């Protein structure tokens, strides 16, 4: 439930009253929304080049950082390709029942990997540091 929002929505009476109605709406919505697969939650390329930033005088490795990001709509069908959680599927249904109070699930990283960076400090000492959760390995609906 979305606490504090009950009764405030003037369009609430237009929304489906039960789960069966919700499913019908969801199926209808799926027909429309799934026509453009590019809109779905996916991993997108994002590369930060340390070379382009002019940081090669102090960063020894890597040359750049293949970070990636997650973007796209979490709409029906939330199939395995989107790596959706069970809760995300339920939330999508509830969103159809009450779209103005319950948002769609978010497209977010489901797996993150670390990177290591090798760089000089001000004293010309060299630091090798591991940074956790920096690179998106997989995206999904949450």
């Amino acid at each position: 439930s979305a606490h504090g929002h009950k009764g405030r929505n003037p369009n609430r009476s237009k929304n489906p009253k039960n789960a069966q109605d919700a499913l019908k709406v969801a199926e209808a919505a799926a027909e429309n929304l799934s026509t453009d697969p590019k809109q779905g939650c996916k991993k997108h390329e994002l590369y930060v080049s340390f070379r382009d930033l002019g940081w090669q005088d102090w960063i020894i490795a890597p040359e750049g950082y293949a970070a990636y990001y997650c973007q796209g709509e979490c709409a029906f069908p939330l199939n395995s390709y989107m790596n959706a959680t069970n809760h995300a599927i339920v939330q999508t249904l509830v969103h159809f029942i009450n779209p103005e109070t319950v948002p769609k699930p978010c497209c977010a990283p489901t797996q993150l990997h670390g990177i290591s960076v090798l760089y000089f400090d001000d004293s010309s000492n060299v630091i090798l540091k591991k940074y956790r959760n920096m690179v998106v390995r997989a995206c999904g609906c949450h």
Partner: protein
Amino acid sequence: NITLDNEVHSSFIQRRLRSQERREMQREILSILGLPHRPRPHIYTKQNAAPMFMLDLYNAISTDRQQPAGFSYYKPVFTTQGPRMVTQQDSIFLNDADMVMSFVNLVELDQDVLSSRHNREFRFDLSRIPEGEAVSTAEFRIYKDYIREHYENETFHVSVYQVLQELPDSEEDLLLLDTRVVWAIEEGWLVFDITGTSNQWVVNLDQNLGLLLALESMDGQSVNPRLVGLVGGSGPQDKQPFMVAFFKATEVRLRSIR
């Protein structure tokens, strides 16, 4: 099919950043790296022994990450070029560490070249260690070149001391840290454990008076380290002595909201 690597879609529009955007982006990345500002190393070369050793460690991590699950992580990574080497022990330290740092020797000239003194001094600046990092292992590394002349069949004691106090009569108060027996025709990196001393220096920077290396023949005679091939500050770049420390994070660093 559930795959770990979702299909990648390139929707990132590449464009030149405006200078203000560029500065802001650099500031954000530096903040994530935990750096107050962009480092400006004054004198360095990537061909020095320490950066090359660190690059080997970096490559060891990168290679390990590409292995399939279940692959033995503790494999030795030996370099094929140059005299540097990442040992199996280093790989174990590396797996355990959150950060590794090498320190350049601040004593540039070898005293044994300039004077009759046979002891060699080394100093390292440990004041730049980021907060929240504790030393788990620290090593002093010095390269021993192959020497045929003079001492071919002899063995020597190499001892590394912590300088506890510098006394006015030029004698020093010393603490023996580690010792090795080396053969004159040996070649490679000699590694000395200085973990305890490094921890002491990190806590009390004032106590960091450096290390002292002494070489003796088996009959107790002091020997010039240079004559048996111990490379100092005046030697080749890729064989310069250095210190390396492996750190474990003691706290979770929380980034402030900007």
